[in-house]
């Protein structure tokens, strides 16, 4: 008896009890659907979080002085800035860049004080690199002709009860380790979608800092936007030789937790999917055991007339595997269509806005499933179906043909 005949018998066997087979198939389809939608939501959330971070503040590459990255001292500005700027300007892979002065200090008003990071920017250049200007929910993005205006995050504004035109004082250590205080007036309030970021960061014009620190020159941070996020590795390689005192990092080097989240996510989702599919496999095993119980006599007869153990094992295994494999394309297709639809339309999650902001994402979630995940899930279903087939097949082999054929 060749494999084709076994396949034919097994295929027909699973349709003997259509209702039971369909129940199992639908349970696998819905299991797959549930699992893939969770994958889609998780990847969507993670990508949203990553994109939000990259677009709002990280950009694709950043350059710092190595020492600045260690102690954030105002003295440690970017080395060989002119050469770097020249190289960047000539590089076609670079879309734009900006230069930032970064100060760690304290923002105070009559309601209290809060530890913050001040980003001194050139607004015209910054808008080409990050999108904070799009996130202004109140006021303007540096439209005032005055130099001492400040953009604060919504969360910080709420904490210190700041409104437009509120006065705040920023205190920080200058290059001589002297405390310096600068007065600013709130020009705009932004909401980036990441409440932690909104709480800890403020933007001021570069000019306002340079004007008040006559002895200070240079910049601490240079965010660079590329044509393609995946080019960051090769651009980094080209920029590193320009100065040994600087450190050139991709977004994933700077925000390691975001990069790790990507890797962690795949591992966690595989475990999650394994649990779902293992749960479903018990249903398949149970169904097959019932089928074997019903067909004891027939299996006994097959053994009696000379069907060997290997063929009995194969026949039952194929039946079990078929149940999963029939469900697989339907599950994948349904999932693909739903994921495809919501990857464009998105799901409105404004009911849990606060929680999502803490997580660093907006309120509209777009599904995303990398194509290789569909392949991996299919592989998992196939492997689990093979494992599921072993127990019923062994049970079938334990049937005693004499006992089985005796029953009426």
């Amino acid at each position: 008896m060749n494999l084709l005949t076994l396949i034919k018998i097994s295929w027909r066997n699973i349709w003997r009890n259509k209702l039971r087979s369909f129940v199992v198939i639908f349970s696998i389809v819905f299991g797959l659907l549930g699992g893939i939608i969770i994958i889609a939501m998780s990847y969507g959330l993670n990508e949203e979080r990553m994109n939000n971070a990259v677009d709002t503040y990280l950009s694709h590459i950043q350059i710092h002085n190595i020492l600045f990255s260690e102690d954030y001292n105002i003295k440690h500005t970017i080395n060989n800035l002119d050469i770097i700027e020249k190289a960047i300007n000539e590089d076609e892979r670079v879309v734009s860049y900006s230069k930032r002065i970064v100060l760690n200090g304290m923002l105070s008003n009559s309601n209290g004080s809060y530890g913050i990071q001040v980003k001194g920017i050139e607004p015209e250049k910054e808008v080409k690199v990050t999108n904070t200007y799009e996130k202004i929910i109140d006021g303007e993005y540096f439209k005032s002709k005055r130099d001492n205006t400040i953009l604060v995050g919504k969360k910080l504004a709420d904490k210190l009860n700041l409104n437009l035109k509120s006065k705040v004082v920023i205190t920080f250590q200058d290059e001589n380790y002297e405390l310096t205080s600068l007065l600013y007036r709130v020009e705009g309030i932004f909401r980036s979608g990441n409440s932690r970021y909104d709480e800890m960061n403020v933007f001021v014009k570069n000019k306002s800092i340079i004007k008040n620190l006559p002895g200070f020159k240079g910049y601490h941070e240079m965010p660079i936007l590329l044509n393609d996020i995946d080019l960051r590795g090769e651009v980094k390689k080209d920029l590193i030789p320009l100065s040994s005192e600087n450190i050139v990092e991709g977004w994933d080097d700077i925000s390691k937790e975001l990069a790790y989240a990507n890797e962690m996510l795949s591992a966690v989702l595989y475990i999650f999917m394994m649990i779902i599919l293992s749960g479903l496999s018990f249903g398949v095993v149970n169904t097959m055991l019932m089928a074997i119980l019903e067909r004891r006599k027939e299996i006994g007869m097959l053994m009696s007339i000379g069907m060997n153990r290997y063929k009995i094992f194969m026949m039952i295994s194929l039946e079990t595997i078929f149940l999963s494999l029939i469900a697989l394309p339907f599950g994948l297709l349904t999932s693909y269509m739903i994921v495809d639809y919501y990857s464009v339309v998105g799901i409105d999650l404004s009911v849990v806005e606060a929680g999502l902001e803490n997580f660093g994402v907006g309120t509209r979630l777009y599904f995303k499933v990398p194509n290789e995940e569909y392949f991996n899930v299919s592989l998992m279903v196939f492997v689990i179906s093979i494992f599921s087939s072993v127990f019923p097949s062994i049970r079938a082999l334990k049937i005693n043909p004499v006992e089985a054929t005796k029953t009426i």
Partner: protein
Amino acid sequence: MIETKKLLKIYNPGKYEVKAVNDVSTVFAEGEFTAVVGPSGSGKTTFLNCVGGLDTPSSGDVIISDENITKLSGAEIIKYRLNNIGFVFQAYNLIPVLSARENIEMIMLLQGADEKIRKSRTDELLNQVGLYEMRNRRPSQLSGGQQQRVAVARALASKPKFILADEPTANLDTSSTSNLLDIMNKLNINEKITFIFSTHDQRVIDRARRVLTLEDGKIVNDIKK
């Protein structure tokens, strides 16, 4: 020739042992048409199971054409049954998802026969049992008698040395029984196929040319007509 020598089958050896077959020695010559009869629990089915290699005797030998099948391993006995013994069961035991033709052909598939041989042998058997016109019907579309005729054809498909039939007419009405016995009798006479039945059915006993009576696992009577 099939020979049993001091065949003994004990169930529950030890405390509550039952001797289902007790020291049975007999010979079935080629071309015999034998009915093994006896009251319920007399050991008819156990005796046939031991002769057919389905059950392992506690002691004694079953020698078929000079081969002692009790000495064969598990895999060997399965192969032996496939190529040498045909089985007909009381409840037909056809595979419901296969047609009459496929049920018959399946034995030859298990034997690895090539397609041409399978097809001609299946057609020949379907004609012999009078079911050629119904060859594409599944068991559920056939009557009990027709199903049992398919089962006989299936048993013959492997060209066995003999056929063991356990109460083959128990579920059949008078006309189906008569029809089935005619077919088996014809096959026995024309093709010299050895049939051994276990039965309670007087209609079968009347047609048998040898009647072996068992009681408490022992042969108490052996009549050759």
